[in-house]
């Protein structure tokens, strides 16, 4: 047995003790922070001004911090669209050549429109050409970055929003539409050098897809279940300076009271089920230069068991009718999906690549290579894993 369960059980016990202590400490720190929150509840313009001077990514409040908006009535007729993706990274041990696969689940469910068909589908794309496998610096073609890991994640994120824009553009528009992606609109692209070409490659394409959605007049949002976003926490760190020794709130404690907390801890506690918080704009030095009119706003939504974070582009945030529709639709979707939007759950079902699917793809590739007389030999390490020797 590869796991030393005896040793692990001791560590699990110690971890449990620490987690219980941490939870109690969290409650204590939240009580300390309540004072800070009350103090700044109505001083949000001051906070918004401060936010513009902070270097880190922060949340910019657009109204009182304790703002709660109850859900509008759940709509009976609307069209929900969602996409979600999964990928297979190039496998250097597999021997079947370098390729990646992106699978995007696409779902459109017209609610309250019995004459229209439901669409559940997936689109799989194989990347195998040099153009697919390497991101080339347009100013210096000798610089090539392999499309794998975080970069492939970014490519998949763009593919998800592109599929969503395709759905939105082809929608019959017989009812108001809401388009959802899982996760965030503020995806990260790691750059090796400052002002590298990678961000512009991914963000420019991403923003183009958001623009297609805007022109199709379909409300778009990214939904993050049990959000751990800390943009507001970062703002408060800027307020207090994050120096516990001289802080009135931490009163000389060994660590900042905000450590380990997230935005849901700060403003999610006051929300009743189906309430949403006020809107916050995310000021991000990384994203803002690329996003333009699609700058990202977010609100928190209490679904009963948890607090979710919903990110929207600025043109949705400024449209009260769209915002109301989004709120009401998310409530209906979470009710139908038992706490998670039903349409996103369907998209996830269509995106998942099972072990069986992976096996079929490997076999297809190996058969094709064999037909052409190319031997697909796995690396020594993979061969050793596949056949255990004693």
């Amino acid at each position, binding site marked *: 047995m590869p796991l030393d369960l005896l040793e692990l059980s001791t560590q699990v016990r110690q971890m449990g003790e620490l987690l219980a202590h941490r939870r109690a400490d969290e409650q204590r720190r939240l009580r300390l922070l309540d004072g800070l929150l009350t103090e700044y509840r109505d001083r949000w313009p001051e906070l918004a001004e401060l936010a513009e001077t902070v270097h880190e990514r922060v949340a910019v409040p657009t109204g009182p911090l304790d703002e709660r908006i109850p859900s509008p009535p759940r709509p009976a007729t609307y069209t929900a669209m969602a996409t979600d993706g999964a990928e297979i990274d190039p496998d250097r041990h597999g021997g079947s050549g370098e390729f990646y696969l992106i699978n995007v689940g696409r*779902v459109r469910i017209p609610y309250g429109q019995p004459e229209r068909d439901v669409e*559940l589908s997936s689109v799989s794309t194989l990347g195998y050409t040099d153009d697919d496998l390497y991101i080339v610096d347009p100013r210096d073609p000798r610089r090539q970055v392999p499309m794998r890991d975080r970069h492939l994640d970014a490519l998949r994120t763009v593919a998800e929003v592109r599929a969503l824009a395709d759905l939105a553009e082809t929608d019959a528009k017989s009812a108001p539409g809401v388009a959802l992606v899982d996760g965030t609109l503020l995806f990260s692209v790691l750059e090796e050098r400052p002002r590298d070409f990678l961000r512009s490659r991914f963000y420019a394409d991403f923003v183009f897809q958001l623009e297609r959605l805007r022109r199709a007049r379909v409300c778009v949002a990214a939904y993050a279940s049990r959000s751990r976003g800390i943009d507001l926490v970062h703002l408060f760190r800027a307020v207090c300076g994050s120096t516990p020794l001289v802080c009135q709130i931490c009163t000389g404690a060994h660590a900042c009271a905000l450590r380990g907390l997230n935005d849901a801890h700060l403003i999610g506690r006051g929300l009743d089920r189906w309430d949403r918080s006020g809107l916050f704009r995310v000021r991000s030095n990384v994203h803002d230069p690329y996003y333009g009119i699609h700058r990202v706003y977010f609100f928190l939504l209490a679904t009963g068991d948890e607090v979710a974070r919903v990110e929207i582009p600025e043109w949705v945030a400024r449209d009260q009718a769209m915002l109301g529709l989004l709120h009401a639709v998310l409530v209906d979707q979470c009710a*139908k999906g038992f706490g998670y939007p039903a349409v996103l759950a369907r998209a996830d079902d269509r995106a998942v690549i099972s072990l069986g699917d992976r096996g079929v793809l490997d076999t297809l590739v190996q058969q094709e290579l064999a037909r052409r007389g190319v031997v697909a030999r796995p690396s020594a390490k993979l061969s050793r894993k596949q056949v255990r020797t004693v």
Partner: protein
Amino acid sequence: MNTFSENGTAGPFPGQHQLTLIGEIVESSTTEFLAQACELDSAPPFGAFVEVATEDGLTIYGIVAHVQTAGIDPGSRAIMRGHGDVRDERIYQENPDLPLVLRTTFRALVVGFTEGAQLYQFLPPRPPRLHYSVSVCARDTVRVFASTGLDYLVAMLNAADAPADELLAANLRYTAAQMHEPAEFLQLAGRALAQLLRADYARLTAILRRCLAQTGAW
């Protein structure tokens, strides 16, 4: 529900049969096949005759021995969705995606086949092909099949993964309803069963009771 015609002049069933497409084979073996119903909850009745034609001239007959509706993805489970006054059909109206993630399947026990003009009540040389169409047998087909002989009753009696006695009784009731003289057919079938179950009187009477319960003759 789709219907299509098949020219049956070469077989034991003269004339044109209007076949009702009911499903497509998704698992196939010598003794039974599993079909997915074309529409959710629209499987043929338990005990009904179904048929599958193959391109090499065989038509294989089966008896529906099990019907099931569940999630399409293995491992996905249906959960309770009703709330307030949203019950029954309204659950489907509120969740229009459900018919696309659920499916109804039915398993049919192979009981015979025709090859050319000849009808046989034993297992065919080859199982039906995957993805081929399954249709409910026309009334004439059922009459000819049951009038040819009752050897197929043994297949049902020995069915391993089905409630054999229930299946047999359901099939006899279904067949009798298709015949010109239901009572006469039931009498014949009763005699054949008495032969087969001469050593098991209790089982025989239990089956007969199920066959005749709706006629009031028992």
